[in-house]
């Protein structure tokens, strides 16, 4: 460097003098914004480096920030997903509770409709362990005064009857069980018959003669003649009618949703205890509703 400067000392001196004057000139000159040119030059020289450093720092910062944000977003996403799952679970629970509350409200309404009837609310706690029988277990038993042949119903209609009462638990034979039989009548024509279970979702209305017309959609109620079920409780609706050898083959869709039982009412008394109440006339309407 020194050798170069000595070899080109005149040129070096020229450049040095020119630069010195240039800076001196720039120091004196003020730009449009009353800023000395030397400052503008200094800024112009420094600013690219500053911008570069700033860009690098910004880039790194942004990268780190994005990484952190991404990591945070992932955690947030996991947290939100967990919260969503929890909320869904909660919603399902609330929906179930709402449905349960609705059922209980209906049961309560039914109970209020028969203020003197010994209706006991019970919860279905189990179903039949064998596919051959359609029974459910309820959480009321002999200790609560439940006994065999007591009627089990919901606001929709008849469910069945208690076939065994144990301490704290009772077994209920559903209307759809093949062993079930309920005295019935067709609401419109007042034709008497027996509703029997088929083991499936439908029941069969038997002993209706071929010459006695039954319309599809007709409502079937309890007749009370079996001395177990009070008269006038909804059993179901006729879904199909076919003439048989002597009697028609009439299929009935149970009014109560037997496959989705949760809460039921048990008439802890004789059948008359329901019909003998002052509001007996309203009961059928209530149940029908």
């Amino acid at each position, binding site marked *: 460097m020194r050798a170069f400067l000595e070899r080109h000392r*005149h040129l070096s001196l020229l450049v040095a*003098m020119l630069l010195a*004057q240039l800076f001196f*000139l720039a120091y004196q000159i003020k730009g449009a914004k009353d800023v000395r040119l030397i400052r503008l030059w200094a800024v112009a020289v420094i600013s690219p480096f500053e911008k570069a450093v700033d860009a690098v720092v910004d880039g790194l910062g942004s990268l780190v920030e994005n990484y952190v944000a991404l990591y945070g977003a992932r955690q947030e996403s996991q947290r939100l997903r967990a919260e969503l799952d929890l909320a869904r679970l909660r919603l399902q629970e609330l929906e179930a509770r709402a449905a349960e509350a609705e059922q209980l409200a209906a049961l309560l309404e039914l109970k209020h409709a028969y203020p003197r009837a010994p209706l006991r609310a019970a919860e279905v706690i189990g179903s039949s362990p064998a596919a051959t029988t359609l029974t459910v277990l309820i959480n009321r038993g002999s200790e609560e005064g439940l006994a065999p042949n007591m009627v089990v119903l919901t606001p929709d209609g008849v469910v069945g009857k208690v076939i065994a009462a144990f301490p704290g638990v009772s077994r209920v034979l559903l209307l759809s069980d093949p062993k079930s039989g309920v005295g019935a009548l067709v609401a419109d024509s007042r034709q008497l018959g027996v509703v029997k279970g088929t083991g499936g979702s439908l029941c069969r209305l038997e002993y209706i003669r071929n010459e006695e017309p039954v319309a599809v959609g007709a409502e079937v109620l309890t007749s009370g003649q079996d001395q177990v079920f009070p008269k006038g409780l909804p059993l179901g609706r006729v879904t199909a009618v076919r003439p048989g050898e002597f009697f028609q083959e009439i299929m009935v869709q149970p009014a109560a949703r037997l496959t989705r039982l949760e809460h039921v009412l048990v008439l802890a008394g004789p059948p008359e205890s329901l019909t003998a109440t002052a509001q007996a006339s309203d009961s059928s309407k209530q149940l029908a509703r």
Partner: protein
Amino acid sequence: MALTYQPRTEVYRFHPAVVLGAVLAAIFLQVFLPIYLTLLTLFDLPLLVVIYFGFSRRNPSSGLLLGLAVGMAQDLLSNNPVGLFGMAKTLVGFAASSLSARLDTDRPVPRLLLLFVFVHVHQVIVASIQGLLLGEAGEFLGLRVLEAALVNALAGVLGFHVLDRFRKST
């Protein structure tokens, strides 16, 4: 042909008083004479002094330093930002010194031509600085610059002849 490639090794030296006197006289005249004679505004006597000593000393460093000093003095005495004429005369002093080693600058015709060129170069440099740094519209070339170049060239040839009397061969 006067302007021929004819390397010259002869270097002249001056008594410092002569240099100082010539510079001061040039600046003094440049400052006061135009007051009385407008035509003299075309003259740039300090430039002529710089060129002359550049031609005679044939040393680029001393040429540029003399140009620097004269130009800055001129700037200081004027309203120009200091460095405007300084830079221009530094470059001219350097160029004159450098060229004098390769061209015969002792004869009137080369002097006339070189003076004519250097006045233009000086003006271009000043105008460039004005335009680039000061944001002013400087006059690069034109009739006035041409007139100034002719006047200064002629004055320079005469003045140089006078100054030649004070130089000594080394």
